[in-house]
């Protein structure tokens, strides 16, 4: 959260400009920062090696798998699996579920993110000001987020069953609940359950953002005689831009990659309405043993994930820019 509280941050040795007035002498100023930045690069070696083993090697393997016909017949001699070129990609797009699943995954992620945003924001506003029992309310707000996804899925699957809690409650007010776990409604079931599980993440980031607004800002606004609405629109929301953007991007990535929730709610094969990308990849890989095809779909999903990821990287850099501006 320090990203959004530039004014709280003490000047550090890696600060890009020395004119904050640190202990650095005027004479060494031009050469100092450059040497300090390059000097400890070797310290990155362990992290770099880890990155290589944990990220680069599996990624390269996935790329390689995606252009081979790796399946149950070739798994044993996996290094010799026949080369297919773009065959798996073509199959995934033409006869496979890729396009449908991509569309579903995107729609699901965007909708869920859009729904969690106002919820999280409202909850952050509610839990920000001091009141009796605030600690309890804050803890309760976090429950959906700290529950393992598997538990969330299981509980909701039971609650949304034909004789489950949801239909019982709806029935008591005269509404026939119907089927939540089969048919056209499954997509909305998935969106609603994931919204329920994911909004506290937005709430957390927003609350942290709210807390980083200094007391003196509030005091100055009060002295100026601004109303609550003016303060919210002109002061609070603009300073929440950073955390909100982060929340949106990270939440979208979470939803795109969520395998456990749809799997526990609907199983595999899943209804077509919820056959999101992670489920489609699981099915190709572990139910029909088409590892090459599944790898191709994984690479496609990686491209999909890269889009919000690029926004994320940009957003991080954007914040650094703000930081410079604030300090200048």
């Amino acid at each position: 959260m320090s990203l959004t509280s530039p004014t709280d941050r003490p000047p550090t040795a890696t600060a890009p400009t020395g004119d904050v007035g640190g202990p650095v002498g005027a004479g060494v100023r031009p050469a100092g920062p450059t040497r300090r930045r390059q000097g400890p690069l070797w310290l990155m070696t362990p992290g770099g090696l880890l990155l290589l083993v944990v990220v680069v090697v599996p990624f390269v393997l996935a790329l390689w798998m995606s252009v081979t016909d790796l399946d149950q017949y070739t798994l044993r001699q996996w290094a010799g699996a026949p080369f297919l070129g773009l065959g798996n990609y073509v199959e995934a797009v033409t006869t496979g579920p890729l396009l449908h699943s991509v569309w579903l995954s995107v729609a699901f992620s965007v909708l869920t993110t859009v729904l969690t945003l106002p919820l999280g924001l409202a909850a952050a506003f509610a839990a920000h000001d001091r009141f009796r029992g605030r600690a309890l309310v804050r803890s309760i707000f976090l429950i959906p987020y700290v529950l393992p996804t598997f538990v969330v899925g299981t509980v909701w699957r039971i609650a949304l069953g034909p004789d489950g809690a949801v239909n019982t409650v709806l029935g008591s007010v005269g509404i026939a609940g119907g089927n939540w776990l089969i048919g056209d409604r499954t997509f909305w079931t998935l969106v609603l359950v994931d919204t329920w599980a994911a909004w506290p993440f937005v709430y957390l980031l927003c609350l942290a953002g709210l807390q980083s607004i200094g007391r003196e800002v509030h005091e100055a606004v009060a002295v100026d005689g601004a109303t609550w609405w003016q303060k919210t629109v002109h002061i609070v929301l603009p300073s929440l831009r950073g955390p909100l953007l982060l929340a949106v991007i990270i939440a979208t990535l979470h939803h795109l990659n969520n395998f456990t929730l749809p799997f526990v709610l609907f199983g595999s094969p899943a209804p077509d309405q919820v056959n999101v990308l992670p489920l489609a990849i699981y099915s190709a890989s572990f139910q029909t043993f088409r590892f090459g095809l599944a790898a191709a779909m994984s690479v496609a999903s990686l491209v999909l994930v890269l889009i919000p990821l690029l926004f994320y990287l940009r957003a991080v850099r954007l914040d650094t820019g703000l930081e410079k501006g604030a300090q200048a």
Partner: protein
Amino acid sequence: MSTRRFLAVAGALTVAVSLAACGGGSSGGGGGDHAGQTLQVYLSKQSQYPDEQQQWMQRIKDEFRKKTGADVEFETYTSASEEQQKIQTSVVSGQGPDIYEIGTTFTPTAYSSGAFLKLGDEQWNAVGGRDRFVPSTLAMSGPDEADQIGVPFSSIPFVLVYNTQMFAAAGIDGPPSTWDELVADAKKLTQGDTYGLAMDYKDPFSPWKYIWMFAQQYGNPLVQGTTARIDDPTVARAYDAYFGFLTKDKIVNPDAVNWASADATANFASGKSAMFTMTSAGVIPTLAKSPVASSYAFAPMPTVPPGESALPAGGVPATTIVSGQNLVVASYSTQQDLALQYVDLVTSEAEQQHFSEVFGVLPVNAAAADAVASGKEQYAPVLEAGKQAKPTPFTGAWSEIQLGLTNITVQALAGLSSGSVPPDQVQRQLTELQQTAQTAVDKAAAAR
């Protein structure tokens, strides 16, 4: 965060490959004196009987040490995906358990990987010979007698269970022998919130078994040689009958669109359904504690398909698949002789009878099966069904076909719950599945 995103997506599939380097290894050696050797066995967890399984493992360990001087190390899996990962990791890395317990319908896939020991006469003799086993259970050991990898370990035939009290009250003499008779009986037994037949339309496995069974009875084995016959009219007819129990005959509780096998069992156990098909002797512990404890009986399912008064020409009187568990020995294992001695032990008459008594499955050992049948009248129809069991097509394409057949039911659930499944929806999916299946069958043929 970005690195974790990368990992989650790119690494999900390669995890088996990257784990290869750290897969568990089995101890080397082999032959001669077996003392000091350790055999690793990977088997399914008996979730219903955890304590009993611990005791059984200890019993086998003791017996095996007495017999060979070697130790046995057991590892259990609780889900199919856990089992898959272990097998895939071991196959890729060439190290892992010496013996795996795998399901009969997964055996064709395991066979096609070429990662398991082929059983010739010498190997069969080491485990007591083919004659030791109930003949039908050998049908899923391999594509033909010369190419087998699986030794039967347990048998779980699918049968019909019916409420004898409700049958008597409705004046029905005994279990039906044709599916039309079953429907007629069920109509008599359907009253108010009590239904003639419990169904598990939402089960992850049951649906394809019905389609396979009806298609067989109509004369279509689904895969004939190197030809997939999914778009054959008999398959559409099978779905029509299967969905029709609910939509046309109205002998099934509409809630069944949300039921898996356990839910349908619970409904039968509460006395709200008079029959439940495609079930097994595994429901005995549940039924024993239920209101119907003294009023149920098993029977083989009818062998004459829906809409027919006799088995059609070319039809096969199939009711249950050859169901249960096989034992396979890894071809990378350095102690295959020892592994076969283990298989010999657990498929012996005494051990099979004991295993059956403890866990409620049926023996694959012919002598043990006879002993169990004479001891418990309840089991006789189940054993009979097991003897008549028919194998599913032994092709590497089967997993694809099985999943596709189940998927058609999954996509039809919404229609089922609203009262009708559009026939063109099923037909369109069957046409698609035909292509997928034929491609998979061709691939399997090319790989052999």
